């Protein structure tokens, strides 16, 4: 498999993730889609690192993983408290903060 195929896979994964964020209502699924997008980008970074023989891309992938882990912790905490208060994980229900 050439590195180009990994980039193509990353694009596919990213699009799936983006569409999932835009069309799904369940906050849990949206989170997973966000993770999917992050990992697609990680995959692209690693592929580009391999293509250019440059370790920078692999290092950034680690950083992204750390940030993603922190993001998941905070996001899940928020999600938990919203679910406790409203008995729903739908992001369309939590629309009070508006004009």
């Amino acid at each position: 498999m050439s590195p180009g195929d990994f980039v193509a896979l990353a694009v596919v994964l990213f699009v799936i993730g983006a569409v999932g964020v835009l069309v799904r209502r369940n906050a849990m699924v949206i989170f997973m889609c966000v993770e999917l997008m992050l990992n697609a980008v990680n995959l692209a970074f690693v592929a580009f690192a391999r293509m250019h023989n440059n370790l920078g891309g692999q290092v950034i992938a680690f950083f992204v993983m750390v940030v993603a882990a922190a993001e998941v912790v905070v996001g899940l905490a928020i999600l938990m408290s919203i679910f406790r208060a409203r008995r729903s994980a739908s992001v369309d229900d939590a629309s009070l903060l508006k004009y």
Partner: protein
Amino acid sequence: MTGSLAVAQSAAAHAEATLPAVGAQRAAWLLLVFPLIGAVVLLLGGRRTDRWGHLLGVAMPLAAFVYAVIAFAQMLGYPGDQRSRNVQIYQWIAVGSFKVNVGLQLDQLSICFVLLITGVGSLIHIFSVGYMAHDEGRRRFFGYMNLFLAAMLLLVLANNYLLLYAGWEGVGLASYLLIGFWQFKPSAAVAAKKAFIANRVGDAGLSLGIMLMFSTFGTVTFAGVFSHAHQAGPGVLTALGLLLLLGACGKSAQLPLQSWLLDAMEGPTPVSALIHAATMVTAGVYLIVRSGPIFDLTADARLAVAIVGAATLLFGGIIGSAKDDIKKALAGSTMSQIGYMMLAAGVGPKGYPFAIALLLAHGFYKAGLFLDAGSIMHGMNDEVNMRRFGGLYAVLPITFTTFAACYLAIIGFPPFSGFFAKDTVIDAAYHDGGTTGWIVGTAALIGAGITSFYMTRILLMTFFGKRRWAEDAHPHEAPPVMTWPVILLALGALGFGAFEILGDRLPDFLGPVTGYVPPEPSVVTQAGGIALALMVIFAVIAWLLFGRRPIPETAPAAGPAVSAARKDLYGDAINESLLMRPGQWLTRLSVYFDNRGVDGLVNTVAATIGGTSGRLRRVQTGYVRSYALSMFLGGVLLVGALLLARI
């Protein structure tokens, strides 16, 4: 030829240096301080001064008069060209090169006014003690009267225009307070406001004149302005003359600012006598005569003064001929007499002394006439309608005698005051020469006839004929405190004119100030004779109309001419349609423009921004997914732009 000589001589006379005062004259500020003390004590002292307030109010003018006589006696001891004395008090304003001192100028012209103001003023104050005896506000009345005297003396004693202006505004304030003295009467309150507003128009003219003086000459002192006057251009001088004339018109109730004087009769009668007959309304004449060196250099402004005077003397006389209210008839007469003075002042140096001579004589007889009117009102329950008088000569003998004396003086019956004072004015008008001289001279001659007509009418309607009194009227002679001042004024009215004019006494006295030169033999020596003939003819006409026939108790319907005169020759209507209505339209227009134009623009901008942001706000839906979409689209745009830029 002789004109230019006269101008040169008068300029030389005005340029003479003013010497510092010595001796008793150094205390000239006492003249201001005496009445000012009276005003301050009476107005701030409150009710605890009620009991003796009127005594203080009389004592202060008397003290000022005594001092004025002393200063006058000292002045007579100097030779003619050294009589102008300066009393420096303190420096008022010092801004850069602009310095104004509070200084008084005692010269022949101001001493004439000081003696008139304090002398006649004292007599009127004494009269007021009796006239206002039953008025609750007598103390306040005397306070205002003293305030008026202080302001008027400041006006005539000031040695610069700015200080004169302070006095000028002071007399305006006192006049306002005294016209509206009985402010519970709506008519009095309205009349006071009217007088104040009409005067503001004139005051604006005077203040603009002073500003023009400052910007042209860099000084506002009489000495400084007059010595530099010949350096100014003719346009500036004419503008200056016309602005001063506007100021004089306001204060002296001359056309076109005449309308306030008739309404000013709402004030107590002594006020009408002192302020609106003898002194304040003559301030305009003082201003013109004092500013003689400016008017000497501008024939156009002089002509305007003469025309205003001639027009007003006819205007006032015609109004006075139709009024049934004795005070308003006398007020019309005052306008007319001041018109004479303005006319004489418009003639120039040849007329100034005669303007002042008439002014002083008028101070006596018009104050006497007004005080007599006050005595009549005192005895007739404040009735002023002459149609309800009649036959009063038998019950009010002293009032009748004094009134008759003043009557003979004002119509110019020889050898009393008016005969000398007025005929010299008519002569001076004809002496002016040319077409204008003839026109104003003829106006003055006709005016003499009209004077005789309206005064005879007042005399006949008041003192002769059937008794047309109201049922509850019991006319009685006033107490001595009111009759004696009138008797003294009547004596002055009889003899003062002859004293002034015979032997050129007053013209010679005033000569060094006014630049008077005796005229060459008269072109119309018979002017005096014609005036005499007109006087008799018009008196006979008045007798035929008002003496021989009974007078109806209500005014009969009259032709257009008499109706017009009864309505002040439509002076108020003209003011209303020419000034008030357009003014109201202008206000309405600006209010409309402000509401619709200025406010409209501001409101439109605000509403547009508000509406737009209101719509823009709807973007904040609260749906996370729509935010995510916009972020996504933004990212796509960004990446697209980067790619395009790269390629």
